């Protein structure tokens, strides 16, 4: 590929690096290193297809690859993920701001969801995608996506209720 395509790709990566890493971080339940690895793998695949997708929707392509990689690698237990029983209590004091504490609590709660449920919840509520879009991205029927989303939200509701009860 030519120099101009390389420059164009690097500009795209620099512009979308942060957003893709934030999505990856939510999809991995707050594991930033793993999120970075997955984003890099998605970008490598994007570069292979760059000549085809550069003029269309490169970010959508990268997001789809990232979501599928996250779901697949988690299914294989490649990363040895071990969700904890209890969401850690993070005190919003000292150098930690309240928003960071809340974020940590959210990521810890997300980490307790099965990968497919987590992906469905993140895509529906963070990416604001419709059920059919989520279904297409995950390669699953709409009914399955609806079920994953409902169960994921119920599980999160229960986790946060338990945390609030413990804190109270």
């Amino acid at each position, binding site marked *: 590929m030519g120099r101009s395509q390389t420059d164009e790709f*690097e500009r795209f*990566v*620099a512009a979308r*690096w*942060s957003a893709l*890493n*934030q999505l990856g971080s*939510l999809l991995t339940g707050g594991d930033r290193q793993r999120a*970075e690895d997955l984003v*890099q*793998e998605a*970008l*490598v695949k994007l*570069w*292979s297809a760059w000549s085809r997708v550069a003029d269309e929707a490169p970010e959508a392509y990268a997001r789809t690859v990232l979501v599928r990689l996250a779901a697949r690698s988690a299914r294989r237990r490649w990363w040895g993920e071990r969700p904890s029983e209890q969401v850690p209590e993070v005190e919003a004091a000292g150098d930690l701001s309240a*928003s960071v504490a*809340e*974020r940590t609590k*959210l990521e810890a709660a997300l980490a307790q969801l099965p990968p497919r449920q987590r992906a469905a*919840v*993140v895509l529906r*509520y*963070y990416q604001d995608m419709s059920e059919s879009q989520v279904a297409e991205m995950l390669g699953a029927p709409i009914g399955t996506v609806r079920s994953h989303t409902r169960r994921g*939200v119920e599980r*999160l*509701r229960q986790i*946060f209720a338990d945390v609030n009860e413990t804190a109270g």
Partner: protein
Amino acid sequence: MDDFEQELIRMLRQPQDPRSFEPRHREQLWAAVRVRRRARVRRIAAGSVIAAAACAVGLVLLPRAVDAGPGPTGPPTNPAPTQMVPPTPTDPLPQRTSPGGSDSSVSGTTSPTTTSNSLSSGASSTSHG
């Protein structure tokens, strides 16, 4: 959408510190691209070698298979010639019952396969009658 779902959306979309694309990320990305490209080249080369080997084996085995000809249990290539069955009269010669029968009536009651016989017998019968 209930209160919890609204709260979930707020938490998920809470602005985060932007992460910059650092030089180390750039180096790692291009290194990964090179690794993937090399792996792809190796995969294609391996596929080509396997295909060439398969063709070579096929070329070696094909002449042997042609030379060997059909096996003992193989079906015959040419069907055995059928023998011509001589035509047999389907109807027996009609018995002449009426003494005043003519040649035309005799030939009219015989089949086409027995024409010569009937003619000869008819001639003899007329000569004898």
